[in-house]
C-alpha cells in the first residue's frame, strides 16, 4: 500500500500526515510536489492542511489550478481514496470534488481547540473502524471552517447520507452550541457521491499518538488502510 502526501507551497501539515502514515502506521509514504502529476503508484492521497499559496485569494482557490490537482481529480474519478484535511478540504471544494464552500468562522477568529465529532456513518472507507453514533475527540485549527452550501445541496447531502462527521458535545448531542465555526448543519466532514473522497476540517493526524493526548484520529487512517486491504484482496 502506498500513500502520497501532496505538498503545495504553503502546506504545513504535510510533514505531520507523512509522520503518522509512515512512522506510526508503518506504511509506504511519499511526498508529492504540487508540480508533479503522476499519481499512478499511489493507493491513497492526502491533501494536508496549511495555507497553500498563502491562501491570499481565498482558501484553496489557487491550489486547485496546480498540475497535481488535475491528477488528483483523475485519481478520484478512478475510485482512488482521497482525504482532504482542513486546507485540503477547502481545496477539494474549490476543485469541485466536493460541493459547497468555506466561509470565515462565525467568530471571525482563527480557532485552535479540541472538539467532539459524531460519526454519522460507520460504513465508508474512512470510518469503517468506527460505529455510527460514536463520538470522537479531535483537534481543530482553522480560520475558515464555516462550511456552507445551498439548501438543495444540503438536502442532497442529507438524503445521500454524505455528512460523515458533525460537531457535537462529549455526550454526542449535535447542536450549534458545540459547533466551533458556525457551519451549516454542524458539518465537520463530508464525502462525495462515490464515497471515496472525504473532506474534513478537524485534524486526525494531530491525535494519532498517545503522547499527543489522544488517538481517535487513528480510527480514520486505520479505516482507510482496512478498506485498501480489503480492496486489494478482492
Amino acid at each position: 500500500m502506498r500513500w502520497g502526501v501532496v505538498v503545495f507551497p504553503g502546506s504545513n501539515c504535510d510533514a505531520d500526515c507523512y509522520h503518522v502514515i509512515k512512522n506510526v502506521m508503518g506504511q509506504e509514504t511519499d511526498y508529492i510536489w504540487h508540480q508533479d502529476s503522476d499519481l499512478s503508484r499511489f493507493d491513497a492521497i492526502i491533501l494536508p492542511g496549511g495555507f497553500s499559496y498563502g491562501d491570499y485569494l481565498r482558501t484553496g482557490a489557487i491550489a486547485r489550478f496546480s498540475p497535481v490537482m488535475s491528477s488528483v481529480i483523475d485519481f478520484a474519478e478512478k475510485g482512488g481514496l482521497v482525504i482532504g484535511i482542513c486546507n485540503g478540504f477547502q481545496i477539494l471544494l474549490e476543485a469541485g470534488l466536493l460541493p459547497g464552500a468555506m466561509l470565515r468562522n462565525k467568530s471571525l477568529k482563527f480557532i485552535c481547540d479540541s472538539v467532539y465529532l459524531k460519526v454519522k456513518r460507520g460504513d465508508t472507507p474512512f470510518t469503517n473502524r468506527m460505529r455510527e453514533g460514536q463520538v470522537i475527540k479531535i483537534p481543530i485549527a482553522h480560520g475558515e471552517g464555516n462550511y456552507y452550501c445551498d439548501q438543495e445541496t444540503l438536502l442532497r447531502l442529507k438524503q445521500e447520507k454524505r455528512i460523515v462527521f458533525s460537531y457535537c458535545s462529549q455526550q454526542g448531542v449535535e447542536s450549534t452550541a458545540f459547533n466551533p465555526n458556525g457551519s451549516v448543519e454542524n458539518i465537520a466532514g463530508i464525502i462525495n457521491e462515490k464515497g471515496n473522497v472525504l473532506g474534513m476540517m478537524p485534524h486526525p493526524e494531530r491525535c494519532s499518538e498517545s503522547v499527543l493526548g489522544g488517538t481517535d484520529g487513528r480510527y480514520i487512517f486505520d479505516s482507510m488502510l482496512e478498506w485498501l486491504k480489503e480492496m486489494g484482496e478482492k
Partner: protein
Amino acid sequence: MKELTYREMGLIDEEYAKIKEIMGREPNYLELGMFSVMWSEHCGYKNSRPLLKMFPTDGPQVIQGPGENAGVVDIGDGQALVFKIESHNHPSAIEPYQGAATGVGGIVRDIFTMGARPIALLDSLRFGELDDDRVKELFSGVVAGIAGYGNCLGIPTVAGEVYFNSSYRGNPLVNAMCVGLVKTEEIALAVAGEIGSPIMIVGAKTGRDGIHGATFASEELSEKSSEKRPSVQVGDPFMEKLLLEACLELIREDLISGMQDLGAAGLTSSIAETASKKGRGVEVDVLKVPRREKGMTPYEVMLSESQERMLIVPRKGKEERIKEIFDKWGLDAATIGRVTGDGMFKIYEGKQLVGEVPVAALTEGCPVYIRVGQEPDYYREYMDFDPFSLPQTEPREALLKLLASPNIASKKWVYSQYDYQVMTNTSVLPGDGDAAVLRIKGTSKGVALTTDCNSRFVYLDPYKGGMLAVCEAARNLACVGARPLALTNCLNFGNPEKPQIYWQMQGTIEGMSAAARALNTPVVSGNVSLYNETAEGAVYPTPVVGMVGLLQDISSRCDMIFRDEGDIIVLLGRFRDELGGSEYLYRCYGIEKGKVPAVDLDEEKNLIETVLSLNNEGFIKSCHDISDGGLAVTLAESAIKGEIGFSVDIDFKGKRLDGILFSEAPGRAVVTAQRENLLALQEKAAYMGMQVQVLGTVGGPDMVFRNSGQEVLRISLEEASLIWNRAIESYMK
C-alpha cells in the same frame, strides 16, 4: 524625499564628530544613514553592552552563547536547541497587527539562519488595563498578528504570557521567542567565507518599507510616533514559509558557508555583521538587489527593512544549485557583491562608488556609554509600605477578584487563536501546565519551554525582581518535569539616559545574573529594548526570561491538572505570608507597593531538584508552582482545569489569612499524589531537606479552605470556573 539631519536620524553631536573622525571627512548621506542605524541602541547596544557582560554565558550544555543570531544548547544524541527572544514593541504600538506579525517573522528567521528547523514560538505580551478601548484594539491586533503570521508558517505557538498593567498603556511590549531543533553538525553561523566569495540576497524583493526602523525602535514614543508608521514593516508569512524551506534545503545540501537574515537595519546590518566576523570587507552593487519599487536610491536599498530576505555566502561553485533551489520555491536569488580582504564596506550603484565605510567602524566602532544609575525616589518609600496596615479583604471576595483578574484568568481567548498543535509535537498544551512540553520525534526526549517575568516585582525591587524572573522560569520547567538548561532574555526598559532607569537596568541584570548562576541556566542569547516610554512615563522594567529545559523521558511529563478524588494535596515549601507587590494588593486595594518577597536561591534550587526527583520517581500526579495570586489561586487553577474541587485545612499559626492564601512568595509548589505514595513522597522530600505540608484532598464540587478545622472560604467550582474562564473574553466582546 526630504533629507534627514543626523539628529533626526537619532545621532548626537559627539557621535557625529566621531564619525567624521573615523572617516576623515564628512560622511555622505548614505554613509550617515548606515552609521545611524548601526549605532542605534537597537543594533549597537551602546547603553546596555557593559551591563550585559555580567551575565553568565558558559556551561557544559552551551554550544553557542551570545553573539550569533541565536543561542544553542546541547540536548544529547547529536541534537541541539537554538533559541532567542526578541522585542517588536514600538512597531506594535503604532501598527499592532503588522508590528507583531513581523516580530514573529524576524525571530523565526534568526532561528533558521542558524540552520535549525523552528519548532515552537512563544509570546510574552504586556498591555495597559483592559478597560481602555485603545488597549483592547492593541491587544486584539497583536494577538491576531501573531496568529496570522505564526499559523501560516506552520510553527506552533505553544506558550507565553500576557499581563495587563497601566504602565504599558501607550507602549505595549511584544516579545516573541522562537525555538529550533538542529543536528549539531548542521549548525550554520554568520561567517563571510573566503575572499572573493559571492554574496547573494535571497527571498523577497526590497521595497521602501521599514527604513529607519532600528532608529525608531531606539527613541521614546510620542504623539508624533504615528507619523513613523512607514517605519513599520509589512509581513508576508507565505514568503517566509518558502524562504524557510528553501534555506533549510541549502543547509541539508551543505551549499553555503554563511547565512545572515535581514532584520533591523536591513542590508547594512546583515552585511556588516557577516563581514565583521572574520575582519573581511565587502563590495555590493545596489542595482543588483531585486526591487519591488522603481527609483530607489542606494540609501533606501541599504536601509530598507523589507521582510523575508536573507543574505547568503555560497560555498565555492554552488551558486547555480542555490539558484535552482530558490527557483523551485519561486523565490529570487541574486548575487549582489563579493567578499573582499580590505575590511571596507563599499557600496556601488553600477560602476559608481557611492559609499565607503570601514566595516569595523559600523560594528565594534559603535560608541559605548557607561552611565551612572541613581536610586529613584519611589524605591524606599514603596518598600516601607506594610500590607498588613490594611484591613483584610473578605477572602471569598478576594479570591473571586483574583480569578477575574486578566493577569490570572484563563488566557484561552489568546491561545485559541494560535495554532499550538501543528507539527504534532505539543504534548503539554497551553494552559495545562506551568510550561509547554514538546516531544522530539524519533527519540524518547521532550523539551519544555516557558517565558516569565513579574514586572511589578522588578519595578519595586530590580535586584530581587530580576532573580525572581529567572527563578520562576526554572521552577515552571521543573513543574512539568524538565531540567532547566539555559535562558534567553528580552530586557525591556525605559530611557537609559535617565539615571533612575539605568539604575533599574543595573539592579535587574545583577539579580538575573545571580539567579542564572545559582540555577545553572546560562544566558545564551537575548535582546535589549530601551526607550519604552511615552509622555506618561516608562513601562515597568520588564526583563522577560525565556527558558528551555529537557526531559530525558517524555512519558514523565507532568501538568497542573487535579486528577482523581481522594488524591492528597501537598505543599512543597513553607507557608509564607509576604504580600508586597502581590496581585492581591493590586486587585483588592489598587496598591502596587510593599517589600518584594524574600528570595533564597538555595531554597529555589532545592525545590527544583525535589520536584524533579519526586516526578521521576512517579510519586506525583500534578504539579503547579505558586506565583501570581498565591497559594489560593494555585489550588483553584488546578481544580478548575481538572473540573474537580478540593478541601484543604491549613494551620495559620496566628498569621493573617490573606497573607497565607495570597502571598506570591517563591520557592514553592503544590503537588498531588495518590494516598499510597504519600509516605514515600514525604520521606523523599525530607531526605532532600524540603519542607512538605499535607494540605488536604482532591474531590467534591467546591473549593474549601479551613483554618485548623474551621471553614474560612468556600467557592463552588462552577462559579470559580465560570469567572476564571470568561474574564478576558468578557472584556473583548
